């Protein structure tokens, strides 16, 4: 019994704070205990005010960019490192996990800011820098998921089986491996997307005026207009929530594959 009471309390601990911006964003007025009225006006403001709408577009561009970049980097690296032996392979696998702990986003931001100020790579303040920064932040998460997918399907045995049937490397990739690790890749992509959409810390350091993302806009609005801020906050919560619903679904598919 106590177990279930605690369970409910723990669910509420996450749900109640996240409901606050959502309720706020749909109400006309919320100064007292209960909110008053129902409106979609604050969401409308995201789409109709140019500054907000542009920030939304920038955020989506950056998130897709970070996902694409991570696909190119993570999938081949996870494949290669899954095959690498216990020596340097293990060290690289561990390194990929420890690196983000040792170099928190703040440090990466400070470092990126001063590394690419001159041509040929004058990236600071451009949207490219934001995409790269988000890709760095998302990389360890995606790498872990894709590596786990390769481990789960026992890639070596599968590859050997396919090779013994005469499949070339590309055929094995195209018809055997990629379809099998797809849930892992998609989960990783969703996670990178969600992280990128919400990222504020590094973005605020490396983005100039040209790459104002939605969270940067939210930061200004928290001081100016709580109601617009509530709609942006709620929107970011929906993005995270949807990503996680999809990831849970993909995770269940992964588990079924393993079984």
């Amino acid at each position, binding site marked *: 019994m106590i177990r279930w009471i605690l369970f409910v309390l*723990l*669910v509420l601990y996450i749900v109640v*704070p996240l409901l*606050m911006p959502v309720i*706020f964003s749909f109400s006309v007025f919320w100064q007292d*205990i209960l909110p008053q009225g129902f409106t979609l006006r604050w969401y409308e403001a995201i789409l109709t005010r140019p500054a907000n709408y542009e920030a939304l577009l920038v955020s989506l561009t950056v998130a897709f960019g970070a996902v694409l970049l991570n696909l190119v*980097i*993570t999938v*081949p*690296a996870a*494949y*290669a490192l899954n*095959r*690498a*032996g*216990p*020596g*340097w392979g293990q060290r690289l696998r561990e390194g990929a996990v*420890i690196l983000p*702990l*040792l170099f*928190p986003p*703040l*440090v*990466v931001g*400070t*470092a*990126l*800011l*001063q*590394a690419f100020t001159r041509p040929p790579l004058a990236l600071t303040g451009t949207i490219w820098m934001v995409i*790269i920064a988000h*890709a*760095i932040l998302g*990389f360890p998460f995606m790498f872990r998921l894709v590596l786990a997918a390769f481990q789960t399907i026992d890639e070596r045995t599968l*590859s050997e089986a396919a*090779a013994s049937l*005469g499949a*070339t*490397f590309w055929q*094995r990739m195209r018809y055997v491996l990629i379809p099998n690790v797809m849930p892992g890749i998609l989960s990783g992509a969703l996670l990178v997307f969600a*992280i990128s*959409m*919400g*990222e*504020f*810390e590094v973005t*605020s*350091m490396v983005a100039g005026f040209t790459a104002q993302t939605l*969270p940067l806009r*939210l*930061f200004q609005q*928290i001081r100016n207009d709580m109601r617009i*801020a*509530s709609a942006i906050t709620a929107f*970011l*919560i929906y993005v995270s*929530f949807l990503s*996680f619903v999809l990831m*849970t679904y993909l995770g269940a598919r992964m588990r079924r594959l393993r079984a």
Partner: protein
Amino acid sequence: MSGHRGRGLGPSPCKRRSGMTVTLRGIRGNISQLLRLLSLEVLLLIPFILFVGLFEIYPILNMAYRSLFDLNGNFTLANYINAFTKPQFRFAIRNSLLFATAASLVGGIGGTFVAALAVRLPARWRNLLLSLYALPMTLSGLVVAFAFIVLLGRNGILNLLVRRAFGLPPTFYFNLYDWPGIVMVYAFFQIPLMTLSMSAVFENLDPNLIEAARNLGARSWQVWRYVVIPVLLPGFLAGMSIQFAGMMGAFGTVLALVGMAKNLLSLQIYSHSSESTYNLPQAGALAMVLITITGTALLLLSWSARRLARRGA
């Protein structure tokens, strides 16, 4: 038939060896297959190595190098001397250490508690709880700051409720904008993070082992001391190092809650690299101090976890 068969020639460490060894092995046959395999796997790592090298390692080395110069480009150690002598920075380092320790402890203990409960739930509810606790991982610090301002700000819902219920004056409220409040908001990230790492650890705790210890006549405290804690502690320490490292670098939520009114090392780095007090070499030196602190903490925690794991085994 691809180079895959070539693997059978030797265990994987062969890739580490020099070209000489590879050639010698090649003489025994299959040189082309082996080389093709080697180059393929190395080729596949190139995007990763280029990316991390160019956009993570190089910028940090560059930052470390530049932190040794002043704004006019003359060599100096002043940025580091400042970091440990200027009261502003000394307080920042002290506050960051205290804050990161407090937030890690809250997160570590809270998360362990949630994970301990989660493993006792039926699988369905456990998965629901764990999925829910994965959610904060991607949430922006601003989102959580906003949520708590509405809930617990000066005129937040909970403060209003408590004031109404007990007829208290408006000067009475839970202060979200001081250290306890800030730690509480960060707990919303830290507790779920710890829950995820500890639930994996708890699942490794074999109930048969506890049963066996009991049957052998171990008392309750002995079961904890010799069976449960040795299994849990390495995972707990690993979780704590993630917590501490994360908290040393955190600043988004604090910035949204109190601006620069609180003095943290992370906020100092932020303001020296992107706000009015712009001084990149100084920010770089402070960032190096931060990396050193985090690195030392990670080393200490992993060292003690390994020692404990050995002793526990």
